[in-house]
């Protein structure tokens, strides 16, 4: 609904209830019905407002807008009240046909409010001219004579007027609330600690229990979400060096139960899945063996082992056998009564 500028009169103001202005034609309206009188007067009032704006018209328009807003707010409240009343009442066929007394009464009240608003706006410009006729209208004998009938008719008329103005009123109220509600909300937010309020008053667990996570998850298109994520950009922004520097490796390692992890490792399965023959085939065993042989000084090892062989025990045995040789030789020589033996070995081969 479009916002109605302040100071402009809506086009469809024919049905708006106006307080009948006093004038010469007022006497001629004696036989007019209430609605006709009001309609005729409305036309006259409309022409006056649009044709010659008075100096106090701006004030009047502001007041009128304010009243419209109030009426709109009241309308919303009244409608809600009517709905509540209707809800508490047993089902009524008459209400279903659109003749709901509650709605009618609410509309009547609103119509009266609107009329009062219009009257108040008019009064701002023509206070002196309005008070007297209004009072005279109120004390009109006809009004008192058939009060019940007039009241019923007035209620219907007021309800009709309200319905005609309802859109305008609600639009005004809406635009007003549009401006006002955020301000109120901000003011409330400044004054109220919402977090504390929620903590004290809201049973979050109950709300969470009511949440159908499965349904939410069903509605989430994870693939689309993943497609929208630019992983490369995220990775580029990660400072891996800083991350690695600050990563609490010690803490993680201390928290690890390595034995438990090892217990869970199926070594047999790993070995089964390992292509040991393939690994061996890829190894150049001969080259490795050659390298090992080159690194190991085999002759030196053999010499050292030989030296170990000629250890203390062997040396002792050699010396003892040497002494035994001498002893035997001496005994034999003594028995044979001869000189010492000639034990000179053949000379080594002369290289020349």
């Amino acid at each position, binding site marked *: 609904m479009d916002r109605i500028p302040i100071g402009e009169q809506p086009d469809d103001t024919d049905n708006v209830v106006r307080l009948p202005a006093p004038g010469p034609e007022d006497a001629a309206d004696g036989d007019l019905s209430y609605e006709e009188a009001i309609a005729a007067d409305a036309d006259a009032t409309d022409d006056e407002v649009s044709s010659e704006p008075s100096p106090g018209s701006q004030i009047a328009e502001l007041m009128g807008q304010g009243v419209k807003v109030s009426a709109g707010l009241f309308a919303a409240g009244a409608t809600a009240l009517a709905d509540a009343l209707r809800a508490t009442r047993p089902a009524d066929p008459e209400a279903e046909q659109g003749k709901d007394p509650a709605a009618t009464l609410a509309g009547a009240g609103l119509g009266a409010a609107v009329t009062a608003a219009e009257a108040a706006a008019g009064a701002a410009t023509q206070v002196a001219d309005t008070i007297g006729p209004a009072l005279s209208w109120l004390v009109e004998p006809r009004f008192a004579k058939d009060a019940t009938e007039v009241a019923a008719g007035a209620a219907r008329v007021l309800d009709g007027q309200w319905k005609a103005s309802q859109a305008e009123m609600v639009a005004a109220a809406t635009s007003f609330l549009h401006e006002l509600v955020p301000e109120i909300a901000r003011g409330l937010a400044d004054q109220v600690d919402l977090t504390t309020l929620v903590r004290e008053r809201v049973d979050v667990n109950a709300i969470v229990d009511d949440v159908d996570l499965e349904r939410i998850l069903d509605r989430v298109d994870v693939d689309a979400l993943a497609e929208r994520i630019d992983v490369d950009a995220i990775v580029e922004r990660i400072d891996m060096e800083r991350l690695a520097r600050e990563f609490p490796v010690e803490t993680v390692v201390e928290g690890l139960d390595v034995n438990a992890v090892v217990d869970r490792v199926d070594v047999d399965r790993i070995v089964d899945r390992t292509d040991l023959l393939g690994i061996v085939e890829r190894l150049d065993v001969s080259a490795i063996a050659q390298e090992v042989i080159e690194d190991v000084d085999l002759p030196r090892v053999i010499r050292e082992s030989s030296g170990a062989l000629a250890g203390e025990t062997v040396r002792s045995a050699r010396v003892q*056998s040497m002494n035994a040789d001498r002893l035997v030789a001496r005994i034999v020589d003594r028995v044979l009564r001869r000189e010492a*033996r*000639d034990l000179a070995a053949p000379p080594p081969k002369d290289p020349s």
Partner: protein
Amino acid sequence: MSVADHSNREITAAPRPAGARQGARAGVVSRTAAMVVDAAVSAAIVAAGYGLWAGVRLLRAPRRFAWPELPFPALASLALIVAVVLLTVTWTSTGRSPGAHLMGLRVLGTDGSPPHLGRSFLRAIACVAVPVGLFWSAVSRRNASVQDLLFSTSVVYDWHERP
């Protein structure tokens, strides 16, 4: 060249009394000990061969395995053949059979170097066939055994690793 000169090239590892006798002809006790060791080594080689043979048979037919049966003369003959081969090879190469190596002895030819193959082979046969010929070295004035006299060889103390 005198004995002392000959001993100058000996290793210093030998203790002084023994070092003085390096290069001199060895006596009967040392040579007998070396002969016993050589015999033991030959027997060990035969035993190892027998065990290897049995192992191969076990691997080839585990259920029908039985220890190989060889008459003692055959085993003894085998041991003698092994001994001849062992002595021939070691004497002609370094002059030191396993027993000689252990006792610090070396077999030399007339020129002071290890005997050649033919002489080593004949001497080995002689030693295996008539081992008691060794004991003549106790009587010989030059500590020569019967085999030394036959093939003009001598056995000297030589703790040095190389000839």
